[in-house]
C-alpha cells in the first residue's frame, strides 16, 4: 500500500501558512480508558511546535496516536492531505514521518551502525552518513558499540540521527532532553535548530519549558488528554504566569 503526497498541496507557496499536519477531534483509548479527548492541533511546514504539559497529560499518547502506535483512536489526522487515522504505523512512517520516542527506542542488541542503518529510506534527500557524523561526532567513534552500551545522551543522539537518514522531513520528538545533562541538552537544542534551518518540521513533546521556549514557534498546552490552550512563542512573556500555572512550575 503506498500513499503519495498530494502534489497540489505540497506545491502551495507560503510555508508559514501551509499545514503539514492537521489533527482534528482526535480521541484515543488505552483498552477501556479514554485518554485523548478531541485533540486539535496544526503544525505548519517548517515550524517547530511543542506540546507542553505535566506528566501523564497525554502528550506522549498524542504522538503515539499520530504515529499509529496507539491502536484505538478516532478522529482525523491529515498529513500533507493524507488521512492517517486508519493507516498502520508502517504506512504512516512511509509517508515521511520520523519518530523519536521518549524511551529513545535504541535497539540494544544492534550496533550503533546497525541502528543507524535500520530505518529504511522513505524519501530522497536524507542525510548521508558523513553528514550525520558531522552533526554527531561522538556517534562515529562508537559505530561498533552495541546500543545498550551507550550513555543516555548518545542514545538520544542516535535516536535522532537515524531518522535523518530516512529522508523524513517531519519528525515527532518525544522529550529529547529527559534525564540528560545540561551540556547535552544544549547540544540537542543546537541540533533541533540545525534541523529547522535544514527545512525539517518538528512536533516536540517537552516538559522542559525553558528548552522549549528557546526553540519553538508555537506551543500547545495539553491537560488531561485535551489541548487546553496555545501560544505563539512571542506571547510567552505576557502569559508566563498562566503557563507556569498549567505546567505547575
Amino acid at each position: 500500500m503506498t500513499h503519495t503526497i498530494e502534489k497540489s498541496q505540497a506545491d502551495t507557496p507560503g510555508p508559514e501558512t501551509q499545514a503539514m499536519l492537521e489533527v482534528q477531534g482526535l480521541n484515543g483509548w488505552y483498552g477501556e480508558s479514554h485518554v485523548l479527548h478531541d485533540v486539535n492541533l496544526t503544525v505548519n511546514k517548517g515550524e517547530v511546535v511543542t506540546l507542553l504539559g505535566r506528566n501523564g497529560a497525554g502528550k506522549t499518547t498524542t504522538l503515539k496516536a499520530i504515529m499509529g502506535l496507539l491502536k484505538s483512536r478516532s478522529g482525523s489526522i491529515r498529513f500533507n492531505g493524507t488521512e492517517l487515522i486508519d493507516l498502520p504505523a508502517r504506512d504512516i512512517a512511509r509517508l515521511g514521518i520520523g519518530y523519536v520516542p521518549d524511551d529513545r527506542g535504541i535497539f540494544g542488541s544492534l550496533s550503533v551502525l546497525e541502528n543507524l542503518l535500520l530505518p529504511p529510506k522513505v524519501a530522497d534527500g536524507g542525510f548521508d552518513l558523513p553528514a550525520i557524523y558531522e552533526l554527531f561526532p561522538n556517534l562515529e567513534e562508537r559505530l561498533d558499540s552495541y546500543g545498550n552500551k551507550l550513555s543516555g545522551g548518545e542514545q538520544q543522539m542516535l535516536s535522532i540521527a537515524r531518522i535523518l537518514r530516512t529522508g523524513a522531513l517531519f519528525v515527532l520528538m518525544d522529550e529529547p532532553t529527559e534525564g540528560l545533562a545540561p551540556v547535552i541538552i544544549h547540544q540537542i537544542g543546537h541540533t533541533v535548530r540545525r534541523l529547522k534551518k535544514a527545512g525539517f518540521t518538528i512536533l516536540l513533546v517537552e516538559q522542559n519549558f525553558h528548552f522549549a521556549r528557546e526553540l519553538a514557534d508555537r506551543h500547545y498546552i495539553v491537560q488531561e488528554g485535551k489541548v487546553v490552550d496555545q501560544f505563539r512563542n512571542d506571547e510567552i512573556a505576557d502569559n508566563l504566569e498562566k503557563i507556569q500555572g498549567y505546567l505547575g512550575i
Partner: protein
Amino acid sequence: MFELLGIPPQALFGQVLLGLINGSFYAVLSLGLAVIFGLLNIINFAHGALYMMGAFVSWMLLTYLGIPFWFALVISPLVVGALGMVIERTMLRPLHELDHLYSLLLTFGLTLVITGVFQNFYGVSGKPYPIPAALTGVMNLGFMFLPIYRGFIIVMAVIVCFATWFLIEKTRLGSYLRAATENPEMVSAFGINVPLLVTLTYGFGVALSAFAGVLAAPVYSVNPVMGNDLIIVVFAVIVIGGMGSIMGAIIGGFSLGLVEGLTKVFYPEASTTIIFIIMALVLLFKPSGIFGREV
C-alpha cells in the same frame, strides 16, 4: 590398538560419530525453534511434526515424481515453509495478542493433526529412502571408517547453522529481525512490515526443520512419528542452551549430541535420559540456560 577405559577405539569413534549426527539434528531443529521463539515468543510444538513432514515430502517427491534427493533438499523445505507461513497467517496470528500458551496449545493440536494425517495414509511403519548415489560408500579416515552420507549430514548441518547465524547477525534482514525481536513497535514505526517479517521468520524456522527432515530421510526410516520424541529432546536442548539464543541452539545441539553419544559408550543405561539430567542441573545452577541472558 590402544583402549580407553576398556572401550575399543572403534566403538568409541563410532558412538562419537553417531552423537555428532544426532547433534546435527538437535542443532538444526533447535536453531529453527530459537529463531521462531526470538521473534514470535512462541514455542513451536509442531516443529517435530514438520520435520517429519520434510522427510515425507522428500520421500513423496522421489516415489511419486522421481525427483531425487538433491532437489528435495531445496523443494521440501520450501513446501513445508510455505505451509508454515499459511499456519502463521491463519492460526497463530489471531492468537498473537493472547497468552503465548495458547500458541503452544495450537501447535500441539497441529502436531496431532499432521501426525494423524500421515498415519492415516502411510501407517506407522517406516518408508525406506535410499542414500543418494553420490554419497554412498565409506571413507577411510585412518582411525575409523566414515560412511560418507553420515559425514555429509554433519557438514550440511554445520553449513546451515553457520549460514543462519550469518543471516541473523551480519545482514540487514537479520538486523530487522533482531530489532523486531527487541521492540517490534519501534521497528514498525520506521516503516518496516513487522507482520510480514513474523510470517517469513516462522516460515524460515519451519523450513529449517523440514531441511533436517530431508537429511534424516536416508538414515532414519521415514515414518509419521519420527519427530515426536525427538522434539522433546530438542526442547531440553533449548532450555540448556538458553531460550532464543542462536549460539546456544547451535553449540548446545552439537555438544549435547556428542555427550549423548559418549554416554552410550560409558554408561548406556543413561543415554536417553542424560540430556534431561543435564537440563535439571542447568536449571539448578543457571536457570536462564548456558548461553541465555539473565532474566
